């Protein structure tokens, strides 16, 4: 095996031509990781991240008609898994290359800059949340809900609450994903540095951390009590796995992914998961569920990324990679364009989605409820996300044209999730 062979990486089942890789980096010491060529964007990643963003938005609204199109109703895993996996994948892809080309220090600096952007976005969303909750606290006095209004108690101590929010310890509902993302990105320099050295060992360590987290019940504490809704110590597994796939793991797994055995196991697992989810909605079916299995299975823990959820995501991903080839012509179709656009600017669109969910709740509260309004708000939200993504793309193009020509082929933050 030549060095060139070793470095010819390709994300998920074969990427662009190997030639340019060879000229891209036959380095003195062959790095342990392999990077795919910078060439065409991997549109499937954008597509599914865009999809995840839409689904997260819909899941953040009160349940309505569109909720039925979100994947959490058909199995164990949901959009969060897709989002974190793809984030790990793209982050490793972009910053892994930066680390090889410019060194650890520069890459770390770039990652930290990205973390700062995400942090600022989170604080911005928190401010909007504060405005909303303060409004509700002063205007809503329905005696039916005197107890629920106890949630406003934290407004009595804004000093503590706001500082805790800045420390990422106080996180309102629906604002859990960004703090998780921040912590994972903070760990990224270490992950990449280890992966540069021994990718499989890094993945192994990640699994060990996951197991230790479950075994010893480790968690990040939150304010005023409780813990982080997404435990970074567990969810890192998906992120690191994404990174591992990006850095050549996917290519090495391609034989496994292509085997019919994998396919049938995945199909069987997804079908079983679907059946289990059906029993939640059609309780009559649960007669056919052995009590033993129920007791072993429940609860399916989202906080600590239950193994059932992780494997469900793996099965979904395996089938997706198999049945949706990289050069699938549909990826270029204008119908999927909105999703891909959204996926290409994920940080902005994610924040916009959280904001729109707040706004949607507000409209439902102030104007009217009803399923018609619900569906309308969901649709409008998605249209707004699409429009925003389009504007950002347009602006980027304009700015790139008039901007420096020194922009090198090194992946930009855009690919790593907007920016």
């Amino acid at each position, binding site marked *: 095996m030549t060095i060139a062979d070793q470095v010819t990486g390709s994300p998920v089942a074969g990427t662009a031509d190997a030639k340019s890789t060879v000229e891209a980096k036959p380095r003195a010491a062959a790095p342990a990781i392999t990077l795919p060529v910078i060439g065409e964007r991997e549109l499937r990643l954008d597509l599914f991240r865009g999809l995840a963003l839409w689904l997260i938005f819909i899941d953040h609204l*009160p*349940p*309505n*008609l569109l*909720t*039925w199109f979100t994947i959490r*109703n058909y199995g164990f895993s949901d959009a969060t898994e897709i989002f974190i996996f793809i984030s790990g994948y793209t982050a490793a892809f972009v910053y892994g290359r930066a680390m090889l080309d410019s060194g650890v220090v520069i890459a770390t600096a770039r990652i930290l800059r990205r973390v700062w952007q995400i942090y600022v976005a989170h604080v911005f969303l928190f401010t909007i*949340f504060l405005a*909303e*909750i303060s409004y*509700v606290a002063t*205007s*809503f*006095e*329905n*005696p*039916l*809900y*005197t*107890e*629920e*209004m*106890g*949630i406003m108690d934290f407004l009595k101590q804004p000093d503590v609450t706001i500082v805790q929010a800045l420390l990422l310890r106080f996180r*309102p*509902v*629906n604002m859990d994903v960004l703090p998780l993302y921040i912590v994972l990105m903070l760990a990224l320099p270490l992950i990449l540095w280890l992966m540069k050295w021994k990718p499989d060992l890094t993945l192994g360590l990640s699994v060990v951390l996951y197991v230790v987290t479950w075994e010893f019940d480790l968690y990040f504490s*939150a304010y*005023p*009590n*409780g*813990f982080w*809704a997404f435990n970074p110590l567990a969810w890192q597994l998906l992120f690191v796995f994404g990174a591992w796939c990006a850095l050549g793991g996917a290519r090495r797994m391609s034989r496994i992914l292509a085997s019919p055995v994998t396919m049938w196991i995945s199909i069987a697992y997804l079908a079983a998961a679907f059946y289990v989810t059906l029993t*939640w*909605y*059609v*309780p009559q079916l*649960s007669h056919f569920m052995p009590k033993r299995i*129920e*007791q072993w299975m*429940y*609860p399916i823990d989202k*906080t600590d990324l239950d193994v059932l959820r992780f494997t469900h995501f793996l099965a979904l991903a395996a089938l997706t990679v198999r049945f949706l080839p990289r050069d699938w012509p549909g990826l270029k179709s204008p119908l999927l364009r909105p999703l891909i656009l959204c996926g290409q600017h994920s940080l902005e669109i994610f924040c916009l989605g959280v904001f729109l*969910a*707040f706004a949607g*709740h507000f409209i*439902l*509260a*102030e104007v009217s*409820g*009803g*399923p*018609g*309004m619900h*569906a*309308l708000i969901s649709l409008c939200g998605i249209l707004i996300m699409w429009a925003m993504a389009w504007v950002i793309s347009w602006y980027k193009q304009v700015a790139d044209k008039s901007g420096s020509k020194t922009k090198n082929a090194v992946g930009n933050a855009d690919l790593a999730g907007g920016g």
Partner: protein
Amino acid sequence: MKAKVLRSLILLCGVLAAPSARAEDNAAPQAPAGPAACEVPSYLLATESQLPKVAEAVKSEKPLEILVVGSRSTTIPSSEESSYPARLQAILKEKLPSEPVHVSVELQSKKTAEEAASTFVKLMEAKRPTLVIWQTGTVDAIRSIDPDEFRGAVTDGVTALQNAGADVILMNLQYSPRTETMISVPPYLDNMRVVAQEHDIPLFDRFAIMRQWNDQGQFDLFNSSRGPELAKQVHDCLGRALAQFVVDAAHLGPAQQQN
């Protein structure tokens, strides 16, 4: 939660059938007797778990002593006589005319499931009810108690109540659309469902029922007015639904046909 598939299928049909977006009226089945606003689809009141002690008490014509243990959403400030436990007693008396029914309330405001459960042994010694309806989860959700700990606490509480010789019904949280963005309710709903399943006890799905009312336009739960009218009506309907639920779960004969 369980009702979501059905409901959205109904809605989907409605939306497809009617060009106007507001289609919920088309989809509603014909209303049964009783106050129209209290209508609850039967699947929301269906349970396979039973209430053997209640059935036995009614059969042997012993008085039916029901204890409602709950937090503040079990009452209406300054209108206790209109709260759902009071309504439950009135309606059960109507449904079971030959049966002495007494409903008492043990209010444990601002107590988590764990704090409430720790009082159960003494409480049961003092009251000796046939049936305990335990409404819980709200305080835990507000304080974002660890859902695992919450499940453990509910399990302990249910076990204590059962050991003291009572039937148990769990009642989950209210549907509170205004605070939906602030309180994370699903983990607590899920864990209560798990405990109910494990112990084979009925779960009164207050959350789904109230959401149904809101979605179908029977009540506007976003209403921010101070007046107690809405609260009184909702509690009246909750009392009715709960009475029906008790009667069904205990298989109390022909009374099931009434609504």
